[in-house]
């Protein structure tokens, strides 16, 4: 690790429950044994990484979004706002204009197209960003309030916060939401490398192939980690060989790991094989990104 250019690694998986969070938290703690690292939980609907650390709360701020606020005294009830809102977030019921903050995408159309300026934009809390510190580990998470749907903008803001505060850390890890829809794209789009976590089962393979398609569409360098190796079959390994995808590590299946995870403990500290796997993953990420940058 001679070149100290900052490196962003996203940890993603097509399917939930493959061990994405386990891997992110263990990798982060493993790196933090040696140097500063930031772990950013971008699974804003269900952020779970924080459950594995007892860090000290270092900073907390509200995540805000802009929504229109009705000014009754100026309004002429012309109905333009309701007409221009594609999301049904502003409706007119008789003599009232009602705004639905959860449905609003903050496009400003209603506000700026209102002829009498009766819908100025104001900020509204949609969740909380928390920043924890545990020795050399910085842990940032955002949590959306229930019912809020603007995951993408929260993900983007959380990334910006991490960039601003921990952009100097050599390595930043992003724990991405599961699936292949917009939030995943947002979480992975400016990573230097994406680590796809899967299990060697038919479900794992199916979802991995979707995630691989996504990463290829984004033109991201990526590698695969097989978790719970030993269960299921060899199809994931064969798929990776056929598709020329690098298999970075195979983490063995064991009841011991499942038990450690369930009580929120870090696994690599108890199981040496996992520690070696993490080192292998890290080396490969660094090498690949160095190669890409040349």
């Amino acid at each position, binding site marked *: 690790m001679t070149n100290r250019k900052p490196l962003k690694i996203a940890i993603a998986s097509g399917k939930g429950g493959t061990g994405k969070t386990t891997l992110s938290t263990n990798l982060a703690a493993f790196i933090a044994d040696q140097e500063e690292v930031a772990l950013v939980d971008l699974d804003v609907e269900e952020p*779970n990484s924080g459950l594995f650390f007892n860090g000290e709360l270092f900073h907390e701020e509200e995540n805000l979004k802009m929504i229109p606020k009705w000014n009754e005294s100026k309004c002429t009830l012309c109905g333009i706002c309701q007409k221009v809102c594609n999301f049904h977030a502003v409706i007119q019921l008789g003599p009232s204009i009602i705004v639905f903050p959860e449905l609003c995408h903050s496009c400003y*159309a209603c506000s700026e197209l209102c002829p009498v300026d009766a819908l100025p934009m104001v900020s509204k809390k949609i969740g909380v960003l928390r920043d924890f510190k545990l020795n050399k580990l910085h842990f940032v998470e955002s949590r959306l309030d229930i019912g809020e749907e603007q995951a993408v903008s929260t993900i983007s803001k959380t990334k910006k916060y991490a960039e601003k505060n921990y952009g100097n850390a050599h390595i930043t890890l992003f724990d991405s939401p599961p699936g292949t829809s917009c939030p995943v794209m947002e979480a992975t789009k400016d990573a230097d490398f994406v680590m796809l976590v899967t299990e060697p089962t*038919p479900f794992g393979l199916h979802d991995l192939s979707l995630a691989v398609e996504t990463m290829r569409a984004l033109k991201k360098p990526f590698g695969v980690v097989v978790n719970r190796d030993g269960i299921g*079959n060899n199809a994931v390994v064969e798929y990776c060989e056929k598709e020329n995808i690098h298999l970075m590590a195979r983490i063995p299946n064991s009841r011991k790991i499942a038990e450690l995870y369930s009580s929120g403990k870090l696994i690599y500290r108890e199981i040496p094989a996992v520690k070696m796997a993490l080192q292998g993953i890290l080396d490969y990420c660094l090498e690949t990104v160095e190669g890409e940058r040349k």
Partner: protein
Amino acid sequence: MKEIVIISGKGGTGKTSITAAFSVLGGQDVVVADCDVDAADMHLLMQPDFDFSEDFYSGETAYIDQSNCIRCGKCAEVCRFGAIQDKNKLFIVDPLSCEGCGYCARICPTNTIVNKERLAGKWFISNIKTGSIMVHARLGIGADNSGKLVAKVKDEAKEIALEERKDFILVDGSPGVGCPVVSSLSGANFVVLVTEPSVSGLHDLKRVYELVKKFNIKAGCIINKADINPVKCAEIKLFLEEEDILHLTDLPYDENFTNAMTEGLTIVEFDHGLLKALLTDSWEKIKQVVSSKK
């Protein structure tokens, strides 16, 4: 006709495997709806024949007709999502960033921008190995997982159930706590919560149950891998009691879950011992609860 929805909040708890097992136990009486469209895996266990398929559109994307564009740049100015970029005096829409708010189209002085429906994926009706029918879908990469596709899948399943006089619709619900889950829950007669005794399992169970409560739906719970963490398991049971959630069963940590999946079978086809007995018993309980008049 009764609608039973299976959800979990967190991924990887065995929700889909359990839904598939119930659909085999229910056999001809059950129409299956896979609403976990982001990671639709259930078809891997049900041998669907993809008898009918259709494109699915959701949301909109701006489209600029370059031949009429006067390059005034107003569209890029009003776009809050950075979706319109000036590339050598050509204004180009990035469909991944565009949220389809339609603001650009409304202010374009030459009306050269239109909002077009966005292809979001495909949906299918299949005959499956249980002798019954399954409605399922596949979301395109980076598509917006809205309530609309979930509602579509459920509607089609409902129509088939009515036509064919089926007793039950079994819905594999969406993950998370956002709009797709709300759509999965809406209209349900009974919810089965599948969880596991881990820090994140309990955390996500509580979060998703908030939603279930809002809809006044009676709920039952299956604790999977119950023996992996007795302390957490007890905590979950306490929560179930407090909230008056029916405790359906505890399933042990059992690799037959994966072994069955690897063979393309549901658990009840693969395992003829304890797992099958527990799941059969749960299914009978569910049928009893939804069929009894309150």
